[in-house]
């Protein structure tokens, strides 16, 4: 008995730690109180990135290399033949002193080709910069088309991703989905990609309670926030997240996000 009592507390602690890490955790309190799940909704880019100078240069070089490797097409062969024929005819006409006007290729075909080229030159593509970009509207999903956008909502005191406490009889993913529809309206349709949380954030008020982030893909619809719980919402890029989120929050979520 005495020897048992003399076991140091540090050793006991280590034993408990080991049992926690390997076996089932002995949680005395209801875990649902400490678990929150948040939806990390991302709008994937609709446009490719603008090419850098180096990429443009390499592209030009690759075009030249491909042309070097290629062979003449049927059309080009025909053109060559016609040009040779024209030359010989003109030479003969000169020798004999006769005025002959020789057509180029098939004129109708040439006209068609010219009209196509004109169409191509006159075509103006839609500018990459959209109206929300110009006006600085953060609530639109049609801003910054070449970046990934993340959905943030504003509570009374801070910006964060839409989150809520664990619901009864639901797993993390189902809870996140339910909370999202509760906070941002049923019109917003998203697709959750995985059941696995991508990041974890411990709340500053109570370190034991944790928020787990689940990634989802934005499909369609607009956000209609629950005005009782939230004040505002925004679609922002990873760079802009820094200005919105608290440093602690940003530190725990940013490694899981792509630029």
């Amino acid at each position, binding site marked *: 008995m005495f020897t048992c009592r003399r076991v140091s507390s540090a050793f006991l602690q280590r034993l408990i730690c080991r049992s926690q890490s390997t076996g089932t955790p002995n949680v005395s309190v209801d875990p649902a109180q400490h678990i929150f799940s948040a939806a990390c909704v991302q709008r994937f880019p609709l446009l490719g990135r603008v090419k850098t100078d180096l990429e443009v240069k390499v592209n030009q070089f690759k075009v030249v290399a491909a042309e070097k490797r290629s062979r003449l097409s049927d059309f080009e062969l025909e053109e060559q033949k016609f040009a040779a024929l024209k030359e010989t005819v003109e030479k003969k006409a000169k020798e004999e002193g006769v005025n002959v006007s020789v057509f180029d290729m098939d004129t109708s075909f040439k006209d068609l080709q010219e009209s196509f080229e004109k169409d191509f030159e006159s075509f103006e593509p839609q500018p990459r910069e959209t109206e929300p970009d110009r006006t600085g509207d953060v609530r639109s999903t049609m801003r910054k088309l070449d970046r990934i956008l993340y959905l943030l909502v504003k509570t009374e005191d801070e910006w964060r991703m839409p989150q809520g406490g664990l619901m009864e009889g639901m797993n993390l993913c189902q809870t996140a989905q339910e909370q999202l529809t509760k906070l941002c309206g049923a019109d917003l349709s998203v697709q*959750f990609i995985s059941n696995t949380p991508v990041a974890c954030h411990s709340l500053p008020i109570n370190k034991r309670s944790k928020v787990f982030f689940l990634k989802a893909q934005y499909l369609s619809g607009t956000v209609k926030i629950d005005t009782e719980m939230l004040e505002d919402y925004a679609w922002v890029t990873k760079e802009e997240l820094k200005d919105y989120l608290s440093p602690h929050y940003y530190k725990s979520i940013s490694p899981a996000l792509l630029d």
Partner: protein
Amino acid sequence: MSLAFRLHSLSVLTNRCLPPSSLVPARGKKTAKKQKKSRKDAQKDAMKEYRKQLEVREALEQVVLQAARRGEPMDPEMFNPARKRSYIQPSEEEREKRILLMKEWSRYTMQQHKQELQQLQGMMKTREHALKELRKLSLPLYKESLELRKDIFPFKRIGPVATPPKDNYIAPDPDSELF
């Protein structure tokens, strides 16, 4: 012959000039003096030339057939000398410029690759951390979060394009009669 032919076809495919001596296997030094060819000799030489050409053609056909068997479409017209594109060799400066460009490009892509790897490793690390924390809080939730989602298919994604779609623009339909 087959080796010589392979060399030839290689030169055709890669568009690289090989010296004509590489087409015919090298023989001993020619020591015999030049003599006037008799008519019979000339005929023999012509026949030899003709046979050589025949062999080349057969070998070419075989290459094409083999490529077809492998599932690679290969047009025999590729070997047609009339289709050879006239190509101006770039100057020494231009060539050096290109080599430097490719070196810079490889450095750039390497950097990109490194960044991507770092990002992926960071993502994996945070995910593992999150799973560990979840396991500490609740085991059933942890087990459930490891399950695969089967409802992610059909997976929709509008791919990135160069410019956004134009408003009120109807693309011309080449199948219609009006076109």
